[in-house]
């Protein structure tokens, strides 16, 4: 900044002829070579011209200016022109282009009313502004109501959702309880089965099959049926059945003991047992025979029962007929 001012003072002194020959030549060599420097000189010259035209140069400078410049007719004309311009410029009305746009177009005299009173607007604009305002207010009111309605709706939905969630929770709890109960029952059944299996194992019978397959299979026979025809009872023997239990129903006299002889279809004895005692099965008198199933091939059989009386005599007590079938 100081250098700038020093340079300007130097140029001013050059123009007013206050420098030595050497200093003048230095400036002249520079402005011949440097266009910007030359322009600064021209600007400084014009500054002096205008200052002289306005009559504000100090006396010494004014006299120097007159001696240096006003000896030229064109310079005198330029000074007169500058004087005219300076006299005319204050009369010229021009808007400030550097003022903010919102404050530029309205002359100060018109701004006697405060902005909020709208009196500075034309009637048409006022009406338009009021209409816009009403629309905005109506819009705001509608928004308020809509917001309240939506809020209520939201609250309801939230309550419904909570109720549904509660129901689902209850159902879920019930389901969990049922599942737990079933699981416990299953565990109990498993435990019972294990116990039974242990019991059976202890008794020597291995239940290789589930309980649907019995170790002994029973057949109730009544005497007097004829072999080979009619309604001979049949007994299907599964392969894992060890014994066939025959219940012979007694219908004649009672004996002290009995003897049973089993004959196949060829009349061959396949099994016998003596010293059998009758027992009561409900209202009936029966003799129970346990015959190993390995002795019972698939065939028609006759079982002859003889009784031993008190005197020792042996008498026919009955004949029983059945058929064995192998599964």
């Amino acid at each position, binding site marked *: 900044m100081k250098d700038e001012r020093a340079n300007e003072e130097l140029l001013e002194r050059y123009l007013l002829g206050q420098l030595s020959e050497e200093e003048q030549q230095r400036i002249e060599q520079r402005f011949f*070579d440097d266009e910007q420097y030359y322009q600064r000189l021209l*600007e400084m010259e014009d500054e002096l011209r205008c200052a002289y035209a306005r009559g504000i140069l100090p006396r010494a400078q004014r006299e120097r200016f007159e001696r240096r410049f006003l000896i030229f007719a064109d310079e005198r004309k330029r000074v007169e022109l500058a004087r005219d311009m300076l006299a005319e410029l204050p009369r010229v009305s021009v*808007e400030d282009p*550097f003022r903010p746009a919102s404050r530029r177009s309205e002359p100060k005299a018109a701004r006697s009313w405060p902005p909020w009173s709208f009196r500075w607007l034309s009637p048409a604009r006022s009406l338009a502004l009021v209409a816009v305002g009403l629309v905005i207010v109506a819009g705001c009111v509608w928004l308020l109501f809509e917001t309240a309605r939506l809020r209520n709706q939201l609250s309801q939905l939230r309550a419904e959702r909570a109720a549904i969630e509660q129901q689902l929770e209850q159902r879920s709890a019930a389901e969990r309880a049922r599942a737990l109960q079933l699981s416990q029952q299953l565990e109990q059944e498993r435990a019972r089965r294990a116990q039974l299996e242990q019991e059976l194992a202890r008794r020597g019978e291995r239940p290789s099959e589930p309980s649907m397959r019995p170790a002994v299979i029973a057949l109730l026979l009544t005497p007097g049926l004829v072999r080979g025809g009619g309604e001979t009872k049949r007994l299907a023997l599964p392969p894992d059945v060890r014994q066939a239990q025959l219940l012979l129903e007694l219908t004649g006299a009672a004996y002290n003991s009995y003897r049973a002889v089993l004959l196949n279809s060829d009349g061959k004895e396949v099994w016998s047992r003596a010293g059998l005692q009758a027992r009561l099965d409900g209202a009936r008198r029966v003799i129970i025979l346990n015959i190993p199933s390995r002795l019972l091939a698939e065939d028609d059989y006759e079982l002859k029962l003889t009784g031993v009386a008190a005197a020792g005599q042996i008498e026919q007590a009955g004949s029983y007929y059945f058929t064995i079938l192998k599964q």
Partner: protein
Amino acid sequence: MTGWTLTEDALSQLLTQLDPDRARAAEKYEELRHKLMKFFKWRGCLQFEEYADRTIDLVARKLSEGAELQAANPSAFFYGVAVNLLREHWRKSVNAPGQLDDNLKLESTAGDPEKIREQEEAWREREARLACLRQCLEKLPSESVYLIKQYYSEGDALDKEQRKQIAERMNLSATALRSRAFRIRGELEQCINKCLKAGK
């Protein structure tokens, strides 16, 4: 330099040495001539235009005789010749620097018809000038008018601080503001001179 006139060949050679491009050379020629005129005027030479042309003629003659301009600084050659011519002018000059011209004295008109006529003529010229000035101000962009109004008429022209404030308001540096004001005034002057010529 008596007996030598600038020929077309010599001028052409001068222009070529200023710049190989003829259009650029013509521009540089005009710039140099303008500077030479300013130089002689600032040194108080009343015949500044004549001496500027004489400088150019002398340079052209020297070039035609075998001299060459320095490519880096061709204007130095012109300046050197101009200084020599100036010294020759001082030796011969009647209007030495520092003496006022009689044309300045416009006020002493009492009883002198010639002076009265001159004053009336000056008054008519001023009126014509003012009319042209108003016309030219209207043609300028409003921003330019506002700038020169602020710069020249609002406050003291020599008040640097005031100029600085104006520059800041217009978002310009002080130097840029001065340059712009000078340019606008130059446009205004050209417009007025053209207007005055058209009016004659």
